[in-house]
């Protein structure tokens, strides 16, 4: 006969759930996705759907294999947010198989190989992204051209075609370089920043169109802060770190190094600051630790953007930050009340 369960206090709960947190994060991503859709066409939505579906399917299969309750684990919604974030980091024109492989890697090896929710050391979306970036650099480099500067944004059928039947000519017809890519390659040709910036690819702060998406991510991030889903320490520290690095270099030589505003007005920076680096499972846990963690990622991202070979180094910076998080945690534990400080 089983004993009746012993019930412990507290007998109340504030009411938040993991699913609630995930829903709020997804909702905060919505404005950015809408801006993305508006400017660059439905490619981003196709990627999102593809990534989310793959993520859910992969997790369901793995849970079945591990003998865990599927509905409960899928019900927390964390894998859907992983898929969404991964899709938003990839280009809207990424071939379907690249998205698939990135998502499967992220869920299977980035999350479940470590033990599932709460156990992974590395951010699964970033792990998946870096995997495909290293293995398939060419398809990853096809970014949609800014509508004002080149061809209009691809429509739905065009996007579906580019994603699912990637033929080189079709892709080339709609793609261009991302602002970061453009800046990096032109700097490599020894052009000055001021000359590069006069290109119609650029808007007021960053890449034309891309800066609006960055603003939308910023708005979503601030909404999460206000709702109390994330705390301010990581975004503030990340932005500070990145501003420091890009600011110092810009002050040293404004012709060779882009202004901090340019770096911050990229979608990668804003998405990274508010949605990717703030992933609670892989970040540091104490407030002091979070500041250190955010600064580390910001500085690394800035350095990698300027001197790394890839246009955007945020993914690598986040992964390195993840690896350092346990050490940061160990040395930033708060002083317990009553222990001589």
């Amino acid at each position, binding site marked *: 006969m089983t*004993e*009746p369960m*012993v*019930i*412990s*206090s*507290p*007998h*109340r*709960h*504030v009411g*938040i*759930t*993991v699913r*609630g*947190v995930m829903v709020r994060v997804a909702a905060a991503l919505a404005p950015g996705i809408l801006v993305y859709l508006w400017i660059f066409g439905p490619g981003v939505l196709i990627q999102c759907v593809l990534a989310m579906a793959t993520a859910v399917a992969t997790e369901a299969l793995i849970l079945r294999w591990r003998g865990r309750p599927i509905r*409960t684990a899928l019900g*927390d919604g*964390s894998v859907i947010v992983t898929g969404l974030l991964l899709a938003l980091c990839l280009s809207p024109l990424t071939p379907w198989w690249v998205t698939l492989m990135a998502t499967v890697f992220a869920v299977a090896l980035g999350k479940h190989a470590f033990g*599932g*929710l*709460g*156990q992974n050391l590395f951010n699964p979306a970033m792990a998946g992204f870096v995997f495909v970036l290293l293995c398939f650099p060419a398809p990853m480099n096809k970014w949609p051209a800014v509508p004002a500067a080149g061809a209009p944004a691809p429509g739905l059928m065009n996007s579906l075609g580019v994603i699912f039947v990637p033929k080189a000519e079709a892709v080339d017809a709609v793609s261009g370089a991302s602002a970061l890519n453009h800046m990096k390659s032109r700097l490599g040709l020894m052009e000055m920043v001021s000359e590069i910036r006069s290109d119609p690819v650029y808007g007021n702060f960053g890449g034309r169109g891309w800066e609006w998406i960055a603003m939308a991510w910023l708005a979503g991030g601030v909404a999460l802060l206000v709702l109390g889903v994330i*705390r301010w320490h990581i975004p503030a520290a990340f932005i500070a770190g990145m501003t420091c690095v890009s600011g110092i270099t810009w002050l040293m030589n404004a012709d060779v190094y882009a202004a901090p505003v340019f770096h911050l007005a990229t979608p990668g920076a804003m998405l990274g600051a508010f949605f990717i680096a703030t992933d*609670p*499972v892989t*970040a540091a*846990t*104490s*407030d002091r630790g979070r500041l250190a963690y955010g600064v580390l990622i910001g500085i690394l991202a800035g350095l990698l953007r300027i001197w790394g070979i890839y246009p955007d180094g945020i993914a690598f910076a986040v992964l390195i930050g993840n690896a350092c998080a346990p050490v940061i945690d160990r040395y930033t*534990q*708060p*002083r*317990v*009340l*009553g*222990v*001589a400080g």
Partner: protein
Amino acid sequence: MIRELHAFPGGLPLAHYMEWTCGEESLLQPLPARIVLPLQQHIGLPATPIVNMGDKVLKGQKIAAASGYVSVSIHASTSGTVTDIGDHPAPHPAGITARCIVIEPDGEDHWYDIRPVDEYTTVDPRRLQEVIRDCGISGLGGAGFPAHVKINEGVENAVDTLIINGVECEPYITCDDRLIQEKASYVVAGTRMIGHAVQAKHRVIAVESDMPAAYAALARLVGDDIELVQVPARYPAGGEKQLIQVITGKEVPCGGLAIHIGILVQNVATAAAVYRAVTRGEPVVSRYVTVAGAVPRPRNLQVLLGTPVTDCLRTCGYEPQPGERIILGGPMMGQHLRSTDVPITKTSNCILVQQEPEPAVELPCIRCGNCATACPIRLLPQQLYLDTRAGNYDAARQHHLFDCIECGCCSYVCPSHIPLVQYYRHAKSHISAEERRRDGADHARSRFEARNDRLRADASAETQRESAGNTASANSEYVRAAVERTLARRQARDAGPDGETGSHD
């Protein structure tokens, strides 16, 4: 002098729902059909019964004596006959029974011959301590620590600040609020008595900022000798360590006591009980209890100790129903009751009825850090949870597991609905049981080794005797020599200095 208040880390801003019960006069709970008094209503050793079955007892008569220093005596809550001394249901999370004295009231409610202490200001503080101990006073705020032990420690060490704790931080509970409003003079006088007993330099009475009526009632009575302080309402401001930090800015050292930093804290009800004990010789036989939550008529009651919870609920118009959870205490730290057939004890401050919550699925920890942000002791609840889950109890202990006050803030905010407080309680009871087991084993080992040494010594003495000759003759030789020695000694003693033979021993 307006005292500058400090803040404590973490905590939660909880809604209090005080308006339901703090405005109305408390009701006297009628005499029940049976009084069940557990022998342990305090921290320390259970009291030892000094009455037998069938004895007639009077109200306020001591029926169980304190067993040792850290223990408190029990008194009859009403006059009647002792019908049983044995195991009865008592408040316990697993519904385990406890040893109790059961009294059948005779309806007379006849008092024992109680005597006051005259002129307490001239009386030696130790006399006051004895009175407090004899009257069965333990911490009536819910902790149940023997008051005389705390006060004795206060007499032995210098007390800089005496804090009387009227900060009721848990939602729904207003029994202390009501006590202050109705018996403010008892609280203030009791504060002065305890202050005199420990020779405290400063005396403070603290109430919460959302207790204006209580504040006003006290403000009329405190003179320059007592400071009245209003503390911001935040859970758990009423916890001893948190209150000390708010009022003095000092932190109680880990593993230490408040007295080590010269501070003594007592609950307002304890102070009122001290007043009764000193001015009338009245022991603790009743207390204020709030009945709140999903009951038709929530109210504060003055309840005789040993009254069943069922009776108190009935006074407020409630009958237990399925789908509803009954809690002895508040929603954050209260004890779940499986049956309402348990008695009110010295530490019962509230009976709360609430809807049985949806059974929550415990998800894995997502390392969000909400728990660490909410912890008022600045512990790492996440780390303690991981250690306990892994069975790594030594690591949990090193991470200050025993400094956890089990306030429930961490479990309250966990998005994964992890029952953190239960993990820590499990770890603490496991470690304590292990320590007891280890001490028992060490004790058994030393006895075993002592026995082996003794057997070896006997065996070698035997072989020595054997080697002196064959066993029988050697033995008899040994015996004969012993007898001769004894006779010689006796003759020498009987001959004595006067040479006469005396009597045997």
